[in-house]
Every structure is written in structure tokens, then in C-alpha cells.
């Protein structure tokens, strides 16, 4: 294991970018933020390259970078950052999502752009802190600090009637996270009573958590589980999601679906798994059922949606159900598959929402009840969208297929029934995603359907390159899954 303090750059750079954004003129905020996030992506990949492209798990394990800073000795909290084969994916995704989100265009670059950019970089900082931290208290801090930019983004640039949505999102997430905090505290106070003193460093807490028995263990576990289940979200903890996805501005939606939801997945893999292996095993049936039900339930709701954003929102729940199914197999291979699918889902949902924002720029008010016939007007845009849709329905050859396939493959020996239920979701997935694409793209374009303000340019330039690169990544990674699965 290598000790490196270059890791803290992953935290300080976004903060620096945030401060800097306050001094950048309003007109060039978009250019600045895209440039800065690209730079940050490059640096992240450079930083992570050792692990990212390691030939095998042993190599990656050796390369795992850990960095510790004393922070709160009295409370036993420290800045323990760790970049390893789990967190590296989420860190890279974080940087990548930022690029996608900043590349959108809209009111957030016209009204108060400095706040938007600053909030964006703060979000990157918070997420990175959460993904890197191996200390539960610091993780919690980072986990919760992510709310702040989200609230502002949805609240300031969201559509009308956003207030309720913001509060639901905030309060439900907060409810989950505060119960997690209570669980963390409970563990800490247990640990204190054994005479070790406080230390919220994960490896130090694992024995304490292992010492819990029966209902006690179940309740402490539930605190953690609830937080992440709300974040992901799993049905029945999902009710906050639709409104906030729908009413949020596009960059916020991209962030939420691509990376914020992964915070739940990450937490489940990084913290809940190691802390409560016994409890997880004893309630595995329930967990798998929840995941499988999420898949089908959300798919049915997506099928019913006529608003593209809410359709994609539900599809997000549905796909994350697959991810959670992988996590809940409680096998290392299942976890690895879940990470694989997470990456796929993050990329694809990022692209989908990005492209949807591009369509929304060109047409006011897309509604899926009438065919719009836009594909023939914007062939490149819709080709890209179609490829993304295919990836989303996990057509073989894409990263999502590899993920979904491996997840189901791993889940099947554990619970054939849940796998079968989730499999139904795949069929429904095809149904609603095709509906999504067809109603926007196909049919006869009616002349009056073009809004007067919309420009009729097809996708091009920087945006085309961005989308192209991302799609190629999705397909390339779909075949080169070894990058993700080394050694599992």
C-alpha cells in the first residue's frame, strides 16, 4: 500500500476551482467550468491510472493509495482517504459526470452563473470526499454536505413548483442520513465502552460492529441501510425522486442520477458490507426482494410516464435495482458486477439526460403522448440518443449489458425467483425506453411543432465530440470488462 498525499489534491482542487469561479466573469462561466472539469477529469484519471489500468487485482491492491491526516483526535475522526479498486470508479465517474453536467446549457449559465459553478465544484468536492473517505464520520460529513449544492441547484434553477420537491428530497435524504449518523454514533459509543477510545476509522469499527448481536445489530444495520436505500433509491424509499428529477435543472438531474445515486451503492459496498456481513446474510432474502421489486415497480411506473424526464427518473430506479441486486448477492463477484453496472448506468443516464437537455433546447415541452418526429430533423442527435437508449436497455455489447448480465448471473444461484422478477424488468425496460425514443424521434414531424425560439442546428462541435467519446467508452468498456473485473 502506498502512502501518498497527492490524494488530497482530489479534494483541494475542486475547492480551489470553486473559489476561482467566483472571480471568473459571468459570460465565460460555462467555458471555465467545462475547462476546469475536463482538467480535473484528466488529473483524476492520471491519479487513478495506476489502479484503473492495473493488470490484476493484486497489482491494484498494491497500488491502493491511502492517505491519512489527523483531524479531530478527540473524536477519533481523521481524514483517511483511500483510493482503491472500489472507490476509483466512483471518483473517476464523479469527474466525468461533472464534465457532462457542466456541458449543458441553460438558465443556470444566465441567472446567477457564479453560484451554479461554485455549487457544482463544491458538489464534486463533497462527492470525492465521500468516495475517498474511509472514516465514517468524515464520510457522513461529506455525504450530507452534498445536499447543500443540490438544494440550491434544484431550488434556484429548477422549474416551477419545485419547493415541495426540494424539501421532499432534502428531508427524506436527511432522515436517512441522520439515522445513519445515529448508527455510527452507536457503534462509536460501543467501541468507547470497550476501552479503545474513539476511532471512526472503518477498520477499527468492524470488530465493534461484529460484536453486535440480534436486534441490536439489525437496528444499527437498518440505520445505515435506510440512508443508502433512500439515496439509491430502493422501492419503497423512492417517493421523493420523481418530482425532484423532473423539476431539477438538467445538470442537477445529471448529477443526481449519474453520481448521487451511486453514493448509496458505494456506501452499501464500502461500509454496510464489511460492517454487517452477518446481518446482511440473514436479511438477504428481503434485500434481494426489495431490489427485484424496485426493478419491476419502477419499470411499470416508467412505462406509464409521459414526461421524458420522469420516465428517465423511474428508469434510473429500475436500473439501480439491478445494481443493488448485484450488491445484495453478497459475493465479491456480484459486487464487482454491480460496480460495473453502476459505471454503465452513470455514463448512460448522464448521456441520456444530456441529450434530453439538447432536445429540450430545441423544442419546448416534450411530451410523450404525441409523436414528435424529431429524428429526421436532428439525425446525429437522435442517433446518439438511440445508441444511449440501446445501452440503457442493456443491449449486448454495451457496458450496461455486461453489468446486468453479470449481476443476474451472480444473483441467479442466490435467488432464482428474484432474478426472474428482475428479468421481467428488462423486458419492460425495452418497452418504455423504445416508447421514450420513438415518441420523440419518430412519426411525421408537424410543422407547428417547432417552437419559434428553437434553433434547428443538429448536434455538433464540442458537444458531439463529448457524446461520441462517451458512447464509444460505453461500447468499448462493454467488451473490455476486464478493466473492471480484474481478478474477481
Amino acid at each position, binding site marked *: 500500500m502506498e502512502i501518498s498525499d497527492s490524494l488530497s489534491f482530489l479534494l483541494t482542487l475542486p475547492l480551489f476551482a470553486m473559489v476561482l469561479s467566483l472571480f471568473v466573469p459571468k459570460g465565460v462561466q460555462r467555458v471555465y467550468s467545462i475547462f476546469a472539469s475536463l482538467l480535473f477529469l484528466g488529473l483524476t484519471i492520471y491519479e487513478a491510472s495506476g489502479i484503473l489500468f492495473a493488470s490484476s487485482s493484486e497489482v491494484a491492491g498494491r497500488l491502493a493509495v491511502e492517505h491519512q491526516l489527523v483531524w479531530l483526535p478527540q473524536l477519533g475522526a481523521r481524514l483517511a482517504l483511500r483510493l482503491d479498486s472500489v472507490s476509483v470508479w466512483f471518483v473517476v465517474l464523479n469527474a466525468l459526470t461533472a464534465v457532462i453536467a457542466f456541458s449543458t446549457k441553460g438558465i443556470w449559465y444566465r441567472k446567477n452563473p457564479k453560484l451554479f459553478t461554485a455549487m457544482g465544484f463544491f458538489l464534486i468536492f463533497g462527492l470525492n470526499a465521500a468516495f475517498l473517505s474511509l472514516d465514517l464520520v468524515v464520510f457522513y460529513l461529506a455525504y450530507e454536505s452534498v445536499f447543500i449544492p443540490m438544494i440550491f441547484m434544484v431550488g434556484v434553477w429548477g422549474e416551477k413548483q419545485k419547493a415541495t420537491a426540494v424539501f421532499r428530497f432534502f428531508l427524506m435524504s436527511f432522515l436517512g442520513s441522520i439515522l445513519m449518523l445515529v448508527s455510527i454514533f452507536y457503534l462509536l459509543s460501543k467501541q468507547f465502552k470497550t476501552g479503545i477510545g474513539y476511532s471512526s476509522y472503518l477498520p477499527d469499527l468492524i470488530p465493534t460492529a461484529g460484536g453486535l448481536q440480534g436486534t441490536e445489530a439489525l437496528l444499527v444495520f437498518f440505520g445505515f441501510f435506510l440512508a443508502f436505500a433512500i439515496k439509491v433509491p430502493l422501492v419503497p424509499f423512492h417517493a421523493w425522486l420523481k418530482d425532484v428529477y423532473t423539476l431539477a435543472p438538467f445538470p442537477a438531474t445529471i448529477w443526481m442520477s449519474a453520481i448521487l445515486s451511486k453514493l448509496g451503492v458505494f456506501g452499501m459496498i464500502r461500509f454496510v458490507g464489511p460492517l454487517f456481513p452477518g446481518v446482511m446474510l440473514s436479511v438477504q432474502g428481503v434485500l434481494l426482494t426489495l431490489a427485484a421489486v424496485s426493478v419491476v415497480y419502477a419499470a*411499470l411506473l416508467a412505462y406509464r410516464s409521459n414526461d421524458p424526464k420522469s420516465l428517465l427518473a423511474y428508469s434510473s430506479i429500475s436500473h439501480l435495482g439491478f445494481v443493488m441486486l448485484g450488491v445484495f448477492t453478497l459475493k465479491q463477484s456480484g459486487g464487482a458486477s454491480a460496480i460495473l453496472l453502476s459505471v454503465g448506468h452513470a455514463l448512460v443516464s448522464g448521456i441520456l439526460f444530456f441529450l434530453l437537455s439538447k432536445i429540450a433546447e430545441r423544442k419546448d415541452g416534450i411530451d410523450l403522448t404525441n409523436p414528435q418526429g424529431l429524428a429526421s430533423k436532428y*439525425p446525429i442527435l437522435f442517433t446518439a440518443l438511440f445508441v444511449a437508449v440501446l445501452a440503457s436497455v442493456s443491449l449486448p455489447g454495451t457496458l450496461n449489458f455486461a453489468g446486468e448480465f453479470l449481476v443476474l448471473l451472480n444473483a441467479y444461484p442466490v435467488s432464482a425467483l428474484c*432474478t426472474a422478477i428482475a428479468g421481467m424488468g428488462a423486458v419492460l425496460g425495452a*418497452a418504455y425506453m423504445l416508447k421514450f425514443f*420513438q415518441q420523440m424521434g419518430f412519426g411525421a414531424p408537424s410543422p407547428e411543432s417547432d417552437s419559434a425560439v428553437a434553433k434547428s442546428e443538429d448536434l455538433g462541435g464540442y458537444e458531439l465530440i463529448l457524446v461520441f467519446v462517451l458512447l464509444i467508452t460505453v461500447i468499448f468498456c462493454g467488451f473490455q470488462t*476486464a478493466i473492471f473485473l480484474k481478478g474477481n
Partner: protein
Amino acid sequence: MIISLLVFLPLLGFSLTAFYHFSCSSRKKEPTVAVGGFLATGAMVASFCVSIVAWFKLRSAGFGDASIEESLFSWMKVGGLQVDFGFRFDRLSAVFTLVITGVGSLIHLYSIGYMENDGSARYFAYLNLFCFMMLNLVLGSSLPQVFLGWEGVGLASYLLIGFWSQEMGNVAAAQKAFIMNRIGDLGLLFAMFLGFKFAGTLDLAQLSAFAFRPDVATIFGLLIFLACTGKSAQIPLFTWLPDAMAGPTPVSALIHAATMVTSGIYLLGRLNPVIAQSPVVMSVIGAIGAATALMAAITACFQTDIKKVLAYSTISQLGFMFVACGVGAAETGVFHVMTHAFFKALLFLGAGSVIHALSGTQDIFKMGGLRRVLPWTFWTFTVGWAAILGLPPFSGFFSKDGILHETLVASHGNPVLFGILAFSAFLTAFYMTRLYVLVFTGDSRVSEEAKKHIHESPLVMVIPLVVLSIASLVGGWFGAPVRFEETHAAPAHGVSEAVIMVVSVGLALAGAYIAYRKYSSNVRMELSKDPFRIDEFYLSFFGNGVKKASSMVGRFLEDGLFQKMLQASGVAVDLGGNLFKTVQTGSAQGYLLMMVLALIGLVCGLIFGVPGYGNF
């Protein structure tokens, strides 16, 4: 790397064509059919040439169990699973490869002519993509790779059926095909999971050599068969195929007649050793195949759309092939795949030529007397007609007769199956002759509008017709290139092949005669109808079922329960707040009283709650 070359040539063609298409459209230029067609057809022809070379290479290795294997890279490797991306070229794959590349090349060529008016490079890109995926399906060395091809052809099929996407009807047909296939795909997916769980591998060679537990083999076989019913349009998942005729006719010829729909047979052939372990599966396959053959043949007799007739005919013929697989004579089924590919492609292309000539008319009751106007089409169509009827010496005769024979002699053979198939063959002769007579003979019923533009097809369309009619003629003479076993068991029922031959040809002729008598003169208009109405049943039961389920879930669970719960929690907190507020009356003395009461409670708590103070 010869196999990889032949697989990736169509992908190269796809990329080039797509690039050409987009470079044109971004410069606001119409992409021309000629360039796209040339690129795509070139790629296919090259691929065909390579596959012939590969064929000879395989032959030089001796047919037996020889195969050419190529492994490109490791695709997935996790938790004991090891999936390599690679190809295996053996006898079974070879037949399919030759058919795909060969017939594929011809249809590409044909399309240049057929799509000249409303085609674009996009169309050819899709065709190439389809061929690439289909080659993956038949050449893939592992089940996931087969699955890649399996869903990939579904995708190409979706794109091509919905090619004219301005019409939402076409799009709906495409979507239906995709989703019904997806249901079937689930079978393959779960077969893979089952296979991996028990055999620990997904490599096709290892998997088919694995001896499953009998019950597992049954489930595995049924799951595989479910996948096949989807792709090969068998009961219960056949209703998408007639609708798929919404696509351009060459597409129907290539995908929905010659190649894609036969992939079910490929899969059953490939996994035959496993399937054959379970008698249950075998009889299910046979029964479903026979039922499909009969049902589709009956339906075809009531169709008026030229392509729909051919579509039901395809379903029916696929039923024949499945029966062959089901009775344990997969090789005969594969033989029929090949001959069917030739003559059904020929028939479709001929129909396409007719439709092309009549500017899009597809109703056979609005045709008639086209013999004189479209001589090339007529003669080639005649060959196809003879082949599907099974008249000697046309190719269909050999393969169909083979299947009929196998139903009696093969290990899982059954006279009932024979009877059904024989009756289906009779019906086949009836509806094909009906079609033939209505289109080409008699008086012209063509509308005046269409008559103005009527013309024989251009050379690029005629050449494939001619080539295919030759193939349909001679295709049966060599027997199946794949003969798994040179001899089979002695006839169980003592019925000789000669007797069956006579019976089948006699039935065909009888059917043809009845049709001729009925339709050669005094043609009365008929309306197309579906005697079984299975499609409608599906629509109302499953289609609306899902819609209803979705809206019920949405209304009662989502809006009614979860969203309400969220609201209710807010309301509850609010209610609690208002409840607590009622004490906040503003009266100082009221506050004081509350405080005094609290104090009394506390004092009582001390006196009665603390042990020993109760009786001071």
C-alpha cells in the same frame, strides 16, 4: 484470422456506410443509394468470398468434428465465469454462414434497385449491421456471444422494420418485434444462468458436452426453446412476424425469411446434445412446431397481402423445421433451413419485384395477369413456387420430404406429427398456388393508377432473382452439407421413403389443383382475416394488461400510497405542531398551571416512583 475477417467485414461496411451517411447529412447533402449500396454490398460479397475460402479450409480439415477456432480477447471474467470473445467455425456454422453471406450479398444487391427511390445509406448500414450480428450469432464460441448476435439481429430487425419511421404503424410493428423477441431472449438469458450454475461454463462446446441432471436439462431445454420461439416466430411468440412485413421487402426476404428467423434452428442444432437429453423437451418442440406449421398454414389461406401470405408461410415452414428438431433429426431441419432460405428469399424478392412494379400495391386481389408484364419475375417466382410446394426436383422437395420421413422414422417420431405436417404441406400447396394464380395469371385487376408505372425490375434486382432460382432448383441435389450421421436407424414403421415421397407430392398437387380451380377464373374479392385471432388476444391480454398494471401501480401504489405517505408524514408533523400549539394560549396563568401540574407529577414521581418513599 479468417473467421474474424469474414465477421468483421460487414462491420467495416457498416462503419463506412454510416460514416458516409453522417458526413453527407452534416454537410446537408443527400447520401446516395449507389455509394451506400456499393460499400455495403462490397463488404458482403467480400465476406461471402472469405466464407467460401473458410469453407474449403474446413473441408480440407475433414468435416467430421473439425472446426476452426479463433479467440480474440477475454470478454468477461468474474467469479469463475470466463467468457472469451471468439469464433468457432464448424459444419453447422458453415451452412449458416454461407447462407447468410451468400443470400445476404444477393439481397444487398437487390436492395440497390429496390430502395433507389427512398433509400439512403442508412438502410445499407443497417443491413450490414444485421449481417454482422447474424454472423456473431452463428459463429460465436460462447452463449453470451450468441446472445450478442441474438439481440443484435433483433436490433437490426427493429431498425429495418421501422425503417420508414414517419409511419407510426411501422414503428409499432418494429417495437412489437423487438419486445416479443426480448421475452424470448429472457429464455436464453436464464438458460445461460442455469447453464453456468450447473455446468460452470458458457462455452458452447463445453456446454453441449456437459451431462446435465435430467430435470435441469429439461428446464434448460425449455428455456432455450422459449428463446427459439421468439426469434423463430413459433407459438406462442409468433405474432410479430406478420407485422414485421412493414419493413422493406428485401428486409423481409433476408431477415424474416432466410436468416434471422432460422437462428432458433441453429441454436437447437448447436445445443442438440443437451436438448436430446430430455424427451420432454423434444416432444414439446415437436408438438409446438407441428401446431405452428398447421396454424400458420391455415392462416395463410386467408391472407390477401402478398407479403403476409409469405410471412405465414415462413412461420409454417419454420414449424416444419422445429418438428425436425423435435423428432431428433436436427440435420434435416438444418437442410430445410438452407433450401428454405433459397426459395423463400426468392419468393420474397419476387414479391418485392411485383410490389416495386405496382408502386407499392400488396393486395393480391388487386394484381393478376402479371405474367406478361413481368416475365423475369414470373419465371423465377415459378421456380420458388415449385420449390415450396416440394415438387421434384426442386430443392424443397428433398428437404420437406426428408422432414416428413423423419417424423415417422426418427427416434422421437410420431405418426400424428406426420399427419399434421402432411396436411400442412397440402395447405401450403393450396395457399401458394392461390397466391401464384392470383398474381400472375388471369385478368389484370391492377388499378389504373398503378398500371401507368408498371415495369419490369432493373437488372440489379433481376440478377439475384435468377441466382436464387438456380439455387432453389439445385440446392437440394447435394443433400444437406451437414449430415450428422450418414445413416439413421432402420425405419420403425416400415414405411419406405418412396411411399412418403408419393404421398407428399400427391398432396401438393392436390392442394395446387384445388387452388387453381378456385382462383383461376371468376375471382371474387376476399378480405384478409385471421381465423385464430391470437394477435388480438395478446394485445388485449398482455398489451393492455401491462398498461393496466402500470396504471394501477401508478395510481394505487405510487400516487395512492407512497406519495400519500410522504404527504401524510408532513401532515402528521403539522398536525402534531398544531396540537401542541393549542396549549400555547397566551395566558400566563395557564402556563403556570401547566408548570404546576408538571411539578406535581414530578413530586409524585419522587414520592411514589422512588422505592421506599411511598409510605414516608
